[in-house]
């Protein structure tokens, strides 16, 4: 039997909650998204008064699990127990009312309201006339801040606060719900060292009050400083739970990446030619610094790094989406200026962007229109008129070569699966006959079959002498496909690994320095 959230809330209010061993207990949870199995038979157990870190690579399933705990996603299968009672959370509000509060990575505060108003929103104390009692609200906030040792004026506007202070407000808000479980997603990503210390002090204090904290981080050293236990996930599966005192950093990295790399990547060794693209000391202010690398004809250069390491930004800058602040780009030994994508295309570059929906697909248009758009710039037009017959035939052929599954080219691209959309976008770039192909997360969110096809295609292009740059969060993909791997961390290159030396452990070490 599963209790409804409201029953559970009532039980909680009556104080009749049994003393269960675990605050929160997730058993055998499964969650599937179209084409992706995000979680498969996952378990997670949070003890009272502990900080429990979730560890795993990008795409391991951490955020999906966290969102299930916070009521944002509903699991397809499996049970969630809150203090031993089975519960089915249907919304974030459900979770909140049952004592589970989540602090999002991107903070959800209203900038033009005061700190106190933000904390008590929806629950403002009211006076006899039904108006908000601001005096009482101020006192409640001050009291809360004192308890948490936060030094902030409840009357200050949120927009005037630093990111760190906003984080404190979020935490105070979560605590104000008398939450038993606090979920924190990369809470330190925008904080300075001193602010992190303060945050940790607060977390330790909450822990001593018996609150359970689910903590997500990519930073290894934080794990050892603050976490009591950690659970590792990989490819949507649960790997194991350990006390942080029992293991070393290397053990954890091995658990995170520890899969055998099967030969699912059709990597061929092809003759590698001359340097085609040479990037020197490329910087984009406040984003990345002094990036230098060469890519040769036929070579696949993988770029690895955590989300936010600046991988995609480097690609965007090379392609002229965000022109570089300093540094040079040379093609075939000749220095070039690239300040717009248009110029980049003219120089023989192609760029499959990371976000298919935002910067790739023309969703409401059909396959033909999506595929032809880049090549129309300088081919297949006569006096401004599109040579419909020719371009349609070429797109038709491309669509067949790439095995786009569609009844015809007049199908709207939004009706295709992710993998087929990606193939159309790849087709868009192949039509331009690129010499340099930049692929940003080329197989994200697409099914295994289409993935293999795209890998095969990339290999084939390399064989034809295209210089390929491939950015991917998927370690096996980077290792399996690349001739060399460049690893980035916080906007800087932390190392290059040759195919022979590149292992997941080495890449992870460079990526999480």
């Amino acid at each position: 039997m599963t209790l409804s959230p409201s029953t559970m809330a009532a039980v909680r209010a009556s104080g009749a909650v049994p003393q269960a061993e675990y605050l929160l207990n997730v058993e055998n949870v499964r969650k599937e998204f179209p084409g992706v199995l995000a979680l498969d038979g996952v378990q997670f157990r949070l003890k009272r008064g502990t900080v429990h870190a979730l560890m795993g690579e990008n795409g391991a399933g951490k955020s999906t699990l966290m969102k299930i705990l916070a009521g944002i996603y509903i699991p397809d299968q499996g049970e969630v127990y809150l203090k031993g009672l089975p519960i089915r959370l249907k919304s974030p509000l459900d979770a909140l009312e049952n004592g589970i509060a989540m602090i999002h990575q991107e903070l959800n505060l209203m900038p033009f309201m005061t700190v106190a108003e933000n904390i008590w929103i929806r629950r403002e104390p009211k006076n006899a006339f039904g108006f908000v009692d601001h005096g009482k609200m101020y006192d409640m906030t001050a009291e809360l801040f004192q308890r948490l040792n936060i030094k902030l004026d409840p009357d200050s506007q949120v927009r005037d606060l630093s990111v760190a202070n906003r984080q404190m407000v979020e935490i105070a808000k979560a605590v104000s719900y008398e939450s038993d479980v606090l979920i924190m997603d990369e809470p330190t990503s925008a904080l300075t060292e001193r602010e992190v210390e303060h945050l940790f002090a607060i977390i330790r204090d909450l822990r001593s009050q018996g609150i359970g904290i689910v903590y997500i981080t990519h930073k290894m050293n934080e794990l050892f400083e603050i976490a009591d236990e950690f659970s590792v996930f990989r490819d949507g599966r649960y790997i194991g739970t350990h006390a942080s005192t029992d293991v070393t950093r290397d053990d954890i990295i091995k658990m995170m990446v520890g899969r055998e790399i099967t030969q699912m990547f059709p990597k061929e060794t092809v003759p590698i030619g001359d340097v085609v693209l040479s990037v020197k000391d490329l910087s984009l202010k406040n984003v990345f610094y002094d990036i230098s690398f060469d890519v040769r004809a036929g070579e696949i250069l993988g770029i690895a790094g955590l989300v936010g390491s600046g991988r995609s930004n480097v690609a965007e800058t090379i392609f002229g989406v965000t022109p570089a602040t300093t540094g040079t780009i040379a093609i075939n030994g000749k220095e070039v200026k690239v300040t717009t994508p248009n110029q980049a295309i003219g120089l023989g570059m192609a760029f499959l962007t990371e976000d298919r929906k935002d910067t790739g697909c023309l969703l409401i248009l059909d396959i033909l229109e999506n595929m032809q758009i880049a090549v129309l710039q300088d081919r297949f037009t006569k006096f401004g008129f599109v040579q419909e017959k020719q371009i349609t035939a070429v797109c038709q052929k491309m669509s067949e070569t790439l095995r786009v599954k569609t009844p015809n080219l007049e199908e709207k691209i939004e009706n295709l699966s992710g993998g087929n959309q990606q193939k159309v976008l790849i087709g868009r770039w192949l039509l331009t006959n690129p010499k340099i192909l930049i692929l940003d997360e080329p197989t994200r969110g697409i099914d295994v079959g289409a993935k293999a096809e795209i890998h095969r295609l990339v290999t084939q292009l390399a064989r034809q002498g295209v210089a390929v740059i491939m950015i991917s969060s998927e370690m096996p993909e980077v290792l399996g496909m690349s001739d060399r791997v460049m690893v980035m961390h916080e906007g800087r290159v932390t190392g290059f690994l040759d195919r022979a030396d590149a292992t997941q452990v080495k890449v992870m070490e460079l990526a999480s320095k």
Partner: protein
Amino acid sequence: MTSEQATVTATSRRSRRLPPEVNILLVLIGIALVFEILGWIFAGQSFLINAQRLRIIILQVSVIGIIAVGVTQVIITGGVDLSSGSVVGMTAMIAASFAQSSTWARPVYPGLTDLPFIIPIVIGLGVGLLAGIINGWLIAQTKIPPFIATLGMMVSARGIAKWYTKGSPISGLTDEFNFIGTSIWPVVVFLLVALIFHIALRYTRYGKFTYAIGANAQAARVSGINIERHLIKVYAIAGLLAGLAGIVTAARAQTAQSGMGVTYELDAIAAAVIGGTSLTGGIGRITGTVIGAIILGVMISGFTFLRVDAYYQEIIKGIIIVAAVVIDVYRQKKRKV
């Protein structure tokens, strides 16, 4: 393998779906029939079988239609042009001031009367084009919302129209100039404009880029489209067509007044939206807009025919415009689900 091959082939072109204009055309026919029936009931005569009335309808539609062809393209890019009505007034005034006959007692430029009719036309088109380029430049370079940029132009162009002669109308235009407004020439101009831009949108690179920008400006940019330059082109065309509409308006009235074209921009937007152009961009066709403009014209004429009070007409027109946008939003939603 066979099943895969079966699904892979993209060769078989499914028989073309009915174009979306068919629905709008049916609406037009429906509305016309309703007026026909009401005509026999309340006025005791036919609404449609009346050459005089049909002529007036298509003449009225022409000016709004010319503007709407430009506005449709702007809306397809995801923008909007509020300035076209004022640009009509401004170009009507400026063009007319170069089209005055020497027989007129007090021309604006006494030294420049009896000019060949091509000169006021070129000047008028140039003024409209310039207004459009300014709109486009503001939107592309300063990134201010099209709503604001063209609102500014709307106010300023109207100001110029009034300032130009300190409010007095310009009359005594040459017969050659007035000729454009006589007979069915406005309709010919309108249909020619519609045809040209129908072809441009469907068969040229200009058209493909216009739709691409409206569908996803970021993706269009990454695909190598110079968005700034293209937007300036689109707004320039809208301005040019508003200028053309101004010339036709002045020629039809055989005079120019600073108040010409007030709220035309709204009628033009309404015609585009009724014709199926989506305010969120990326969707729209000239054929739809032409039918949309005719629907508006038929409604106005029909209400007058049934002796519906002019005040009610405006109220009803407002409701129709809102209803068209509601339908558009509904269509968008249905598409997403």
